[in-house]
Structures are given as C-alpha cells and as structure tokens.
C-alpha cells in the first residue's frame, strides 16, 4: 500500500488558481483505504472546490489510478471529463503520474505521497519498504531497518537510542533496532545479527 495524505486545501487551491473546470479522479485502492481518495473524500473535495468558486464538472473513481488503460477508458466512467480544463488526482504520486500520461490536460495532485507501507489489524503502518531493490528483510526478523531506521543502518543501532529504547529522532518512536533485536530474540535467531552487510547498491 502506498501511503499518501491530503495536501493542505490552500495549497491545492493555489495550484489550480488558473483553472475553472475541474474533474476529480480518485483511487479505489490505496488512497480509498486510507480515506484520502475514495468516494466520500471525492465528494467532500467537490464541495470544498465549489465553495471556493470552482466548477467541478464530474469525477471518477478508477480501481487504481496507477493502472489506467487510456483517456477513453477513464472517460467512459464520466464523459464530462472532456469539459474539464484540469484534473485533480486524489491518489499517490504514481497515480497522478500515470494520469498525467493520458493527454495534455493539466493534472494536479491533491495528495502528498509519504511512504510504501501497509495496514495490519486496522492500523496504518508507514515505511514498510524503501524499494531498495535488494531485499534482506529475513535477516532482520521481518523488520526492515533500511526503511524504518532514519539513518538506514544495516549493521546495528547508532548510539542515539535512549535508555528506554526511543529513537534519536522521535521520543515517541521505538528504535527499530530494539524491535529487530527483540523479534530475533523471540525467534531464537540472534545469530543473524552477526552478519555484516555491505552498503546497498543504489539505483
């Protein structure tokens, strides 16, 4: 799941200030699950835009904004898209990028994309993967330090962890290396920590 969140409405309005006929595109996959791009949020955005003097000519909720066949395919959902002079995409950056390929119409993102995460037992889990292209998750008990440690440390914790286990960058966040140690201890696999990891090959 790609984690995205709402941009401030003032920023959205500023970005579309030279456009008057807006068509809203949501995303019924990640953004809908996160309540930043589903039907309810689209209708709420429509109302906000209309109250700000914009004309919302229509909206569509494709299954996934990042997987669209063509303009016509999107237009099948609501023909009024052809009257729009701008699209507002309530999806992640991938969704907004793919929508931007459909034509020459101006496409504006309404979301900020923050991480590749997930959801477990109803809780949104950010930063589950950094897409490094060389997955070593197993060696860390299923907790990726490259994505969850602010310093991306692969060979053990820094010295900045507090005595009670908080991360140097955020007192409310437990050091990911404390979590990794506990998990590997539970799995009786602490030996995995002795492995020395080479630097990642950056893309």
């Amino acid at each position, binding site marked *: 799941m790609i984690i995205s969140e709402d941009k401030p409405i003032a920023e959205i309005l500023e970005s579309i200030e030279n456009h008057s006929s807006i068509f809203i595109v949501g995303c019924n996959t990640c953004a809908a699950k996160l309540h930043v791009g589903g039907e309810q949020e689209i209708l709420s955005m429509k109302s906000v835009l209309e109250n700000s003097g914009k004309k919302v000519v229509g909206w569509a909720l494709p299954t996934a904004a990042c997987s669209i066949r063509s303009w016509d395919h999107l237009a099948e959902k609501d023909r009024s898209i052809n009257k729009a002079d701008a699209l507002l995409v309530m999806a992640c950056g991938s969704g907004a990028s793919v929508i931007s390929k459909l034509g020459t119409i101006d496409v504006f993102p309404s979301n900020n994309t923050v991480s590749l995460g997930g959801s477990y037992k109803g809780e949104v889990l950010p930063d589950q993967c950094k897409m490094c292209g060389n997955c070593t998750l197993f060696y860390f008990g299923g907790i990726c330090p490259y994505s969850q440690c*602010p*310093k991306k440390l692969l*060979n053990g914790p820094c*010295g900045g962890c507090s005595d009670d286990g908080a991360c140097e*960058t955020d007192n409310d966040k437990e050091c990911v*290396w404390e979590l990794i140690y506990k998990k590997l201890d539970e799995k009786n696999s602490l030996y995995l920590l002795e492995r020395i990891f080479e*630097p990642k090959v950056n893309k």
Partner: protein
Amino acid sequence: MIYMQGSFVDKIRSRNFVITAEITPPKGSNPFNAIEDAALIRNLVDAINITDNNRGVMRMSPISLGKVLQQQGYEPIIQMTCRDRNRLALQSDLLGAAALGLKNFCIMTGDHVSCGDHLGAKSVYDLDSVQLISMIRKMESGFDFSGNKLEDPPEFILGAVSNINPLKKGQMLKLRKKATFGLDFIQTQAVYDTEMFKNFCKLIGDLETPIIAGIIPLKSARMARFMNANIPGIHIDGEIIDRLDMSKDPIQEGLDISCEIIKDISDICQGIHLMPVGQHLNTQKLLKQAGF
C-alpha cells in the same frame, strides 16, 4: 608528565596512556577561537579531536580546522560521520586529508539532521560506520570502494566510538563488527558510572583494542539532570547530582568528580578524552588535579 605534540600515534601504537581533547569548529570562517581554545591545552594533551557538524549543526570542516591546528603544532584527530557525504565524497575527503598529513580519524554514524540547525537537509548515510571503517581499510590496501586501484594508498589511524552500557546488546554487537576491520582505538561516551565502564571494558576486553574513556566535567546539578534526560548513553548517578546540588562551588565539585572518575578507571583503560561543554578553561586544572 608532559604530553608532547605528535605523540598520539606513537602512544596509541605502543599501548601507552593517551590524553585527547575535543574542539568544536567555529560557525564561521575564522579559526581564531578554536586556536585560542587549543592554546589552553597545548602540551597537556596528545591530540585534539575535532567534531564533524556535531549534533547536526553546520560548522567549519574538521579537516580544514585540523590542518590549521596541525600548522600550529597540534596533532589532530578528525571526526568523520556518515551523515553528510556519500561514498565518493567520503573517499575524496579521506584522500585529501591524507595529502594534508591528517591521518587520525574517529569514525561515527553522526547525529541525525533532525537534531540540528538544518532541518530538511538530506540525511545521507550512504554507508554506516561499520561500512565506512571497512571502506577505509580497503583504501589502505590500495583499492577504492569500487575496487579501482589507488595510486599511493593512504594510511590511517582509525578509531570508533561506543556507548558503555553492556545491556545495549545491539550496540555492543555493532562495536564488534567495527572491530573486525581493525580499530586502533575505541572512544567512549562520557563515563560517570565507573562500574558500568569496568563491565564494558571486561565485555570487550577480548578485542584487545585501546579504550579511551570520555570525560565531561559537570558544571551544575542542572547540567547533570539535563544530560541524563537528553544525551543518549549518559548515566549520572543521583549521588553525583546531590553532590553538585549541595556544593557551594559546583564547577570545582564537577572537576573533583571527573578527577575521581579518571583515577578510578585510568588503570583499566588506555586513555581519556576530555569533552568539556564550552572552552577548555578548566582542562589544565583537571589534568593537574588528576595527577597528569
């Protein structure tokens, strides 16, 4: 005992006791204040250890200040963190430092950007401290990170840093990883709990690497409480805080406490590293009081 310039490398290699002191570069282009600070400890310490944008606060390059202090007759140890440079920039700076005759390095991860004065800057950490030490040893063997041959490979004296709490098992394990590439010294976070420090020394004794104990003289009970609450790896006992609280001269009391710590641990470690908050105004007094 008089400590002469140029003595750090010889002493660390011959396993003699060393005294080092920390200096923070200026936030500006004039090195005068750092030179003045160093003058307060001339002939008292074996080397001056220069911080690298510590706490993520942007300051003059430690390599540049290191050269300035070297020209003034001091032996510098350059701190190098992983926070600000990728593998190209790190190697480039290491070769440049070697060309300037700066060969003592103390390697650390580096405080995160979010601790400092440039919030929003990119935190690089292309390498971690284990990987940086490994890369430097590879450079010494005549090859850069990518395996290309280096002309005139550099030679370095390499130190690493560590907290002293043996219960921080992940940190202890990481120190062992660093040591697999060969460390010339291990410099510790400030010691206040000497029993903890002794346990730490026992725990890593098999590495047979010189341990240099960090010393930060306390100036007040308030400072002690602040450090306990805010500086990772610091453990200041209530008894020490009470002494500072009750003292009519807390600065002298802080020096007395540091002196007692130094005397208690100097037989089991191979040096001390003095990191006073502010200038080295009391370093001479402390060293004299500690019998150096």
